[in-house]
């Protein structure tokens, strides 16, 4: 029987006859076995509040490889999403190493357009 369940039953008075040396051992202390077994993922926090102005925070991810190359020969796309406007910008690349170039293009284009600087990527 799990440690915590036994403890619960004794406290509630549902069961009797557990020797004192056993009940005495049951404490509210940290139980390493329980932690080992029962630890789960922390719940994902709600999305933080949107940034106050464009380009304050930009999310980025690479998607792919797409099994079919596009006509232009690309098989990945890299997404940049401005947190403020949720404005998605997509660049197509053939290799993951081209992400750097894609970001430079995005930065030049977006900062020129909005007049803001990218702060957090």
């Amino acid at each position, binding site marked *: 029987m799990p440690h915590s369940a036994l403890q619960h039953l004794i406290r509630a008075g549902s069961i009797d006859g557990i020797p004192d040396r056993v009940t005495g051992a049951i404490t509210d202390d940290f139980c390493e076995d329980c932690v080992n077994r029962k630890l789960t993922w922390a719940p*994902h926090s709600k*999305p933080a509040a*949107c940034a106050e102005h*464009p380009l304050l925070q930009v*999310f*980025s*991810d690479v*998607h792919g490889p*797409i099994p*079919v*190359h*596009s*006509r*232009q*020969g*690309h*098989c990945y*796309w890299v*997404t940049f*999403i*401005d*947190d*403020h*406007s*949720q*404005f*998605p*910008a*997509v*660049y*197509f*690349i*053939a*290799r993951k*190493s*081209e*992400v*750097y*170039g*894609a*970001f*430079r*293009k995005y*930065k030049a*284009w*977006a900062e020129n*357009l*909005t007049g803001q*600087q*990218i*702060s*957090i*990527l």
Partner: protein
Amino acid sequence: MSGDFDDFLTGAGIRREHSIHDMPQQLGVTEWMNRSIAEGVTTLLSQSGLACTWWEDAVMHWLHGKIHLPSSSTAPLTPFELFYGRKPDLSSMRPFGCLTYVHLQKDQHPALLPPTTQCILIGYPTDYKGWRFWDPQTCKMVISDSAVFHESTFPFHKPGLSGVDMSVNPILPAGAATPDPPDPPAIRFPTILADPLEPPAPLPVPAIQPSPAPVPVPEPMPAPVPAPTADPLDSGQPDLAPQLPAHALPLHDLPECPRTPPAVKQLTSHFKHHPSLGLPLPPKCVSRARLPGALAEANSAGPTHSFAIPLVDAVECALNTSISIKLKTLADVLKRPDADKWVAAALAEIEAHLQNGTWELVQLPPGRCAIGSRWVFKIKRLPDGSIDKYKGRIMAQGYSQVQGIHYNEIFASTARMATMHTILAIAAVEDLELESVDISTAFLNRDIDAEIYMKIPEGLEFEGDPRPGEDPKRWVVHLLKGLYGIKQGPRIWALKLHLVLTSIGFERIDCDYSVYVYSHSNDHIMMPIHIDNLLLALNSKAAIQCVKSDLMAHFKIHDQGLTTLILGIKIEHDCTACTISLSQPGYVESILEQFRMINCNPSLTPMDKNQKLSA
């Protein structure tokens, strides 16, 4: 990521926030966007019918719409407005892949021809005002701002097919052969004039330049079909069967034969035996290398064509095309201890056709097509699942028959299951006897009602000397009787059976055309018919003998005596308790075997006990 990238970010004063490895949940925004894009692309490609290689254009097209729609966190404003600081203009939006008539410049079209070309819309260029089109005739990209859109027509979309069409693979600029869009429905579609050339909202995403060399996508070529290999067993083997005397007719006699050979053909089967196969043929079969007397006499009587058709081992048939339902490969057949039984089954089938006169050998008349034929091997099982007999059948490939040429009516009635149950119930109450009669090779009994030619079945081979200039491959069999697989086979059989039954005193009842009744003084017989299975429920032994002898005069029947099995249903008749029990153990076992549950534990209530059933 590369050190350059990190250096660049540091230099630009950009803070980097990573997500934990394998924790895409922390990247909810972009992961969600990527999923949306992927779904959007699939939708656009499906709607437009374009090949998968167009996904990049589809992504751009989809994003163009996405930035003009409010997202849940930005509503009621659109991403476009939040980013650009002005309201978007949607007047230029058009469906992806729709039919478009693009106006050509004066110098780009020949005189006197319409100054338009038919294209499909594939996007919005970022650096031009207008739309980007693709011209399937020239396989070129066109950018124009003068176009008429037919927004509900997608030239590459195949009607009746859903999903992305992989066959259309327009690779640019290879100029690959691409199906032209179907002719537009004249010029009568509702004319949608292009808006007065508002500048389309420029996409924020310029394609990365220079783009790497396009990776050519291999054209989906049909895999070369291996030519059917010649049967190695069939060459150079001496025939064991004796040559027929007519075979030695001088060649110059042959051209004088009538163009249409006489009705009675000599079909001689030579049963070849290949010692390498290690399969001794039943001696009975070898001795039957010649046809029964009548045909042989007809052959020797006149200067008719003589053809010898050797029957190759049935095992060879299996080697070539015949796929047994139970036996997957020839190796299986040969390894099986019952291989000789399959041979015997095939030989019996050939014999039945030759005796029956199912076909005659003719040259295929010009303008006619011969349908195919093949072998089917099957094990027929008893109700308890044990092997009853081995069957080999020559099947016509009736699916290539054309209505109006090869057949007209094909309907044939079979007894409904409810009718069967009713009659069995009556039989139980009135304590009737149940007997079964099976009619052998039922479909071969009736003359066929159309002119059908069939390729010579596998294992039978034309061996005569063709007339000079004639293609031996043009020899086909002209079907005189019905054959399995022929579309009208069941119908002509049912008509024939109806004629016979009415002539011997049966009456067809009106509520189910497959049930016949026979009433004579105190003898009553009810007979539901399932194609060639006759179930007789009767109250007198005398009548049954009378009926059977009548049937035997017309057909070759297989009297199964007291019914134990009808249509795969096991029947147990308890005369003392006046009950008839139906069960299908063989069927249940085959299902269990199919789903590999043959060793499962039995359950008294084969459903979830805790299921709450409510209305």
